[in-house]
């Protein structure tokens, strides 16, 4: 198991493109190391020793209710607009399908990822940067422990879990709200609604959806944490590292979303 150290800045003066590529390579490399740690027994054991429950609860618990309420209100507005517009054009039979596609397949996972990044993983990346500045990484290494497994991996898993939980809960709430908006408090339209949902979630769409949510969660958990590890401690300001992480996260999220759209609709 490699004890990953923050990459020192090279003494030469490489061009911006090379710096950019080197930065991405470090992110990918650290991400792969964290992935190996997550999949290895020793890594999981060290993560458990450091405590998985606290980061998990801190990442998901505080924002769960707020995000669910916010997405419920946003979904209600969008659902109402779509249904009323579809009815005015005489296309109400397509309204629910459009709601499910737009909200559940596209908007809710994206919102969950961005919300999780802002409220869970960016603060956790800040914590990691703070711990690193205070020399706790070196202290762990002196004790013979891997700081990546002890400090970073629990937060990465917690960030991934937070995004998955937010997306799953909000999608379920949105599905319920869409049904209530279309059919009211009656079970009469359940079969037809279920059929519509089943038609939208074909095997390929379901596979792409699951893959997209997992990749979004991974990116949200991985990029901010790895970005703060990428720079030497104290070399850059905290705000600069967070901004850099945000930009990279935004690019990756955009790429995942684009790939999912291409997979679903082309």
């Amino acid at each position, binding site marked *: 198991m490699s004890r990953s150290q923050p990459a020192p800045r090279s003494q030469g003066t490489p061009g911006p493109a090379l710096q950019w590529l080197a930065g991405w390579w470090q992110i990918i490399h650290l991400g792969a190391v964290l992935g190996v740690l997550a999949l290895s027994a020793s890594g999981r054991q060290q993560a*458990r*020793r*450091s*405590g*998985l*429950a*606290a980061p*998990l*609860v*801190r990442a*998901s*618990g505080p924002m*769960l209710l707020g995000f669910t309420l916010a997405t419920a209100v946003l979904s209600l507005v969008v659902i109402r607009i779509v249904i009323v517009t579809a009815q005015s054009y005489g*296309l109400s*039979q*397509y309204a629910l399908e459009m709601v499910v596609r737009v909200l559940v397949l596209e908007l809710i996972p994206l919102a969950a990822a961005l919300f999780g990044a802002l409220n869970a993983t960016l603060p956790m990346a800040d*914590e990691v940067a703070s*711990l690193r500045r205070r020399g*706790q990484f070196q*202290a*762990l290494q002196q*004790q013979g*422990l891997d700081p990546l497994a*002890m*400090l970073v991996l629990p937060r990465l898993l917690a960030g991934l*879990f937070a995004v*998955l*939980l937010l997306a*799953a*809960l909000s*999608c*379920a709430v949105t599905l319920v709200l869409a049904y209530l908006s279309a059919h009211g408090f009656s079970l009469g339209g359940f079969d*037809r609604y*279920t*059929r519509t*949902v*089943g*038609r939208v*979630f*074909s*095997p390929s769409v*379901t596979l792409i959806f699951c893959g997209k949510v997992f990749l979004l969660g991974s990116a949200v958990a991985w990029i901010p944490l790895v970005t703060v590890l990428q720079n030497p401690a104290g070399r850059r300001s905290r705000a600069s590292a967070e901004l850099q992480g945000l930009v990279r996260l935004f690019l990756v999220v955009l790429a995942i979303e684009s790939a999912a759209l291409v997979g679903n609709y082309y």
Partner: protein
Amino acid sequence: MPPTDPPPDTPVAADLPAVPHLQAKASGLLLLLALLVAGAIGYLLYARGAFEPTQRLVLVADDAEGVTVGMDLTFSGFPIGRVQHIELSPEGNARILIDVPKKDAHWLRTSSIFTLVRGVVGNTNLRAYTGQLQDPLLADNAERKVLAGDAMAELPQMVAAVRELVQRASALAAPDGALAGSLANLQAATDQLKGPRGALGLVMGNEADAKKLLTTLDRTNALLARADALTASLDKLAGKTDAQVFGAQGLLPETRATVLQLNALLGDARATLTRVDGVLAEAQGIASNTRAATTDLGTLRAEVEASLRKVQQLVDEVNRKWPFARDAEVKLP
């Protein structure tokens, strides 16, 4: 394995506030995510029809354009089947394989008709129609031809027809068209109606004919007046005739008396004829007797003729034996 708290000597969470009921909250969150994922998987499997037994229906179409895997087969607007697969048959036709749940399969009968309709707006629709619900159920793996209807295909034809219609209407409504001419004639006719000669002038065309018509009307009125007088005279005549015919001394009572006399006369004539019948019967008897006598006379005549032939034969014999008046003469040519 539940997560364990970090050892006290590790610096991991040294400056973070402790979370009350940490393990319970973490377990609750994990359980919530597990429930959501399991529920989503179960619901999607149910929505995709994974838990209900189905039977296969194969629809054969010339063109499967617009048909997608997962689209519904509807009956009376209700989805009763789902397209599972589309393939090309060896004959070059499209084979649409549809799974119909067993609970909905009773709507499909051997006489059911299947249509593939491509709308101008919206999806392509597969529809089933069953006219006779008493017919036998459609068997599993049944293969049916699907009737294709394409609203877009008929659109150019309809547009061409509408264009022709519009051209005809334009020609009709043109300034030199038939409609404009008719309207001008109608305007002229209306002007004539409003003129001094009115409708009569419009109908007759000129004033002379209209005057003739008025003269004819006057004469007709005079004729009708005379007819009235004539009718009055006829009434009087009818009264007199009634008195003459049906009065006490009229023609009819006398005729009735005459008829009575004629009846009596006819009775006398009938009696006379009866008597004549008797006379005729007697005459018939006499005639019968006479016919018998005539028969006897025939016999007598035959006998006389036989006697005469014998006398003739006798005379001839005497003449042959004794030639008293033989005129023997030899004539030379």
